[in-house]
């Protein structure tokens, strides 16, 4: 789905062709150093941020940026209160945890619930119900009016994971690590009049 930068109409590409699906709220001007076009690096693979979704919940909001890697694959850079999670989608089947079933059945999930992915232990630290309030750029889904439950998980090292289920959709899972802007060598960041731009090496 692509959101027109000018008029914010959303255009969805389906098998039937292009389809206008409505107008998306403009992303509020927030103090985020990320913007569309920022380039970064996960190890040796470079990526560019091509889309953004802003998720809102009762007591706050965060951004999720769609990262298009140079090899054509995609991932997400989730930005929340100054923490960045660089995530790739994984198959929920490889997660050994009660969380996936609890998400499917819309049951409550307690913080501290454990999950094991690829032999590494994670614990849920954040459970929220969120809705998409704005988007920009290109996105792999129709974000209009999306509402979802989201669980973030932390590990004993920099690894992290996120399990989400949108209403009426399947459970989706993502795994990756916490990163800093310096670690991904971000370039093309937003400049602010009163803050010197850090120079991270690409």
């Amino acid at each position, binding site marked *: 789905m692509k959101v027109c930068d000018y008029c914010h109409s959303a255009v969805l590409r389906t098998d039937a062709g292009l389809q206008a699906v409505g107008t998306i709220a403009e992303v509020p001007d927030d*103090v985020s150093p990320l913007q569309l076009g920022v380039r970064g690096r996960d190890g040796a693979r470079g990526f560019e941020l091509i889309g953004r979704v802003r998720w809102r919940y009762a007591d706050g909001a965060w951004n999720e940026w769609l990262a298009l890697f140079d090899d054509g694959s995609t991932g997400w850079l989730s930005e929340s209160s100054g923490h960045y999670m660089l995530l790739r989608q994984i198959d929920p089947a490889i997660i050994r945890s009660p969380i996936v079933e609890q998400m499917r059945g819309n049951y409550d999930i307690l913080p501290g619930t454990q999950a094991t992915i690829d032999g590494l232990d994670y614990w849920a630290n954040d459970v929220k119900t969120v809705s998409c309030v704005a988007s920009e750029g290109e996105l792999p889904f129709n974000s209009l009016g999306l509402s979802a439950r989201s669980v973030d998980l932390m590990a004993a090292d920099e690894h992290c994971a996120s399990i989400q289920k949108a209403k009426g959709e399947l459970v989706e899972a993502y795994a990756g690590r916490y990163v800093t802007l310096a670690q991904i060598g971000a370039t093309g960041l937003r*400049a602010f009049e009163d*803050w010197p731009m850090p120079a991270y090496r690409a």
Partner: protein
Amino acid sequence: MTDAVTSPAPPSPPAPPPSSVRPVNCPNCGGTVNIRVAGTTVNVICEHCGSTLDATSPDLQVIAKADSALRRPQIALGSRAPLRGTTWEVVGYMERTDTEVSWGEYLLFNPYEGYAFLVDDGRRFSLGRLLDRLPKSGGLYGLAVDDTNFSPFGVPYGVQVTFVVGEFYWRVAVGEAVRETDYVTPGTMLACEDGQGERTWTRLDLLDWGEAESAFGIPNRRRNYDRPAPHEPSPYKARLFEAWVIGGIAAVTLFLVSGMAGSQQRIASANADVVLDGAEKTLVIKDVVLPPGNSRVAIDADASTLDNSWVDLDYSLTDQKTQDSVDSYGTAERYSGYDSDGSWSEGDPRPDVTLSSIPGGRYDLVVTLSAHKWTGASSYTPTASGDFFGGGGGQQSVPVTVTVDRGGIFGGNILLGLLVILAWPVIVLFQHLGFEKRRKAPITGSDDDDDSGDDE
């Protein structure tokens, strides 16, 4: 009208980078409130009227009014300074308490680094960052984060917010309560806070004396070690190590130097028999030679056969040429008997006398001896044979051997030297132990209340 060919408009100059500060008007009092982290800030508390405004509502809805007197933090909102390599801006300030003591916490922000906390306990400042990983267990009851071990400090305790101003990325309010458990390692604390169904881990690094103050331009806190912070390293530790190393080297040197003095050597000796309760006997040991320089001289009198009697000895070491003399005396004695506790004995029959700094030369040692029986012998009569006791009968005279040695060392000197050398390391040890005791003591008391919220 001709159709003018319009040339393409020149590209508009790139928009200047936006300022990150967004001024808005407080709907309660109309004052200007600066929102510095738009998009992430959730609650902003107006610094003029203290009302809490909802930053997620488009019209900044008033959530709560101020219920306590407004205070201005010592470091003003909007202040910016570098700390540990990153420039931070103060965007919010709150005060919290555990009902015994209070402290202040500044919320710091940098668009490229995120958030940090500057914690002010009234004495020291610490810089806190939220962890992005969970601690593992480490040590006996402790935790480990990335190879650093922390041990538990104290017991979990309740913490409440008592004052807020500025902007925060969570729904902060006066009265917000969490349960905190602390873990420490020298210089760093791990604070685990459980509240509102959420758990956060914060790593707090103790800043040096004056580090935060000079960064933000506030007066330096006066150094004192009355109430050390839980994660404060002992300032006496380095001094203690140095003191014991230096003291140890000095003590070893002292022993070595003493060893080089050599052992004492016999230079004269003589015997005499002294009649008990008889006339005074004078023994002269002639030609006692001392080498040039000053010597230690030891005069030993051996009267081991004494039994319930004693010998008074007067010594006079006289220089043959100048007739200057050094006088001293000793008493050889030994008493024994039976009483209700069994047999006892008392007294030293081999007294020694030491003389210091005797100049080299030829001397005569004049010894005046006088022996006496002790009449206060026990009244028990033994079952064994009678001549074991003093009292009536027994000895008539006591053989005494007087020997003169020179050289050797004074044990008292060595001991004195050691005590003097070790005095300082012991003092520092007590300083360190006292500090650690105060550091670990549960915090009570009101004389250390947070004073960072000054009324200007």
